[in-house]
């Protein structure tokens, strides 16, 4: 999951999620970086809207009282 947390960190810091940034963050956390996984994540992100993905979380603060019919 550290790759995902690193991506979320960059995302919330409004930074581009590319190989270089991901590697920098992971190395700063002392992670032995697997280049292939970094490449795979960056390429996968091209088809993913992160904000949309995290809104599916079980209890996004926005999901409050049930919406009226």
């Amino acid at each position, binding site marked *: 999951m550290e790759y995902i947390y690193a991506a979320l960190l960059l995302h919330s810091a409004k930074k581009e999620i590319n190989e270089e940034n991901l590697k920098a963050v992971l190395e700063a956390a002392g992670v032995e970086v697997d*280049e292939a996984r970094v490449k795979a994540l960056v390429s996968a992100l091209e088809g993913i809207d992160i904000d949309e*993905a995290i809104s599916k979380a079980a209890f996004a603060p926005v999901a409050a009282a049930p919406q009226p019919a």
Partner: protein
Amino acid sequence: MAAVRGSPPKWKVQTVEELRKMFKSHPVVAIVSFRGVPSNQMQRIRRELRGKALIKVVKNTLVEKALEELEDNYKKLEEFLYDQTALVFTDMNPFKLYKLLEETKEPSPLKPNQISPVDVVVEKGPTPIPPGPMMAELQNAGIPVAIERGKVVVRETVTVVKAGEVVKPEVARALSVLGIKPIKIGLDTRVIYDNGILLTPDILAIDVEKIKSEFAEAYQKALNLAVNCAYVTEETAEILIMKAVMDARNLAINAGLPVKEVMPEILAKAHMEALALASLLPESALDDELKS
């Protein structure tokens, strides 16, 4: 061209030289197997990849030779050079290339005496075949057939060949008669080299949905952590307020504290408790109001 002992023929040296140039001029190269790919399908694949990637079919030994003089992990590609291989050179992102290569695979029939990689099941139901000699073909392939309202029908679902078994010729014929193409044939990726990194299919096949759910899970965990240690951020402020409100309500109600705001709930709770207890009692212990 006379084969001068000791020095390889000119065209081989040229091919190796050309290969080396190709490796150097393309950051991404895939090693794929094209076993079982008929030549017409190969033509279609070349056309589809034109402008995106270049397919080169070269004997493995020549490729190995070309790899020798290259550093930067190219040597590790050797272990993927076996059986019928082709090289696919491109500047594309390796994951996009992988998807493209997967799309070259087409449903194909099983050949006689080939070892089937999959279980092949013939479903119960109608077939496109008219009654006649063809029926015998199906019968001796072990497929139970019958004629219903003038049409040849498979009477029940049957597995005609198991994964790993050799495909008997009569079974292959029966399947092709039925138009069943149980396997996919095309350029099967073994490895893709990308700027010094070797990417194997387990990494190349990206499950976007799985990654999306991992983001949702990571976000939920971050939210949980933030809220459970009362760490205030824009996202957690409202939840923390709601949690504190619930804490106060729960305390007041569960302890029956004399607090006006939740008195209705406390009374309702006490009443519910009385009802629950009453429901366990025999008629004799109840008054008429309760019985209703």
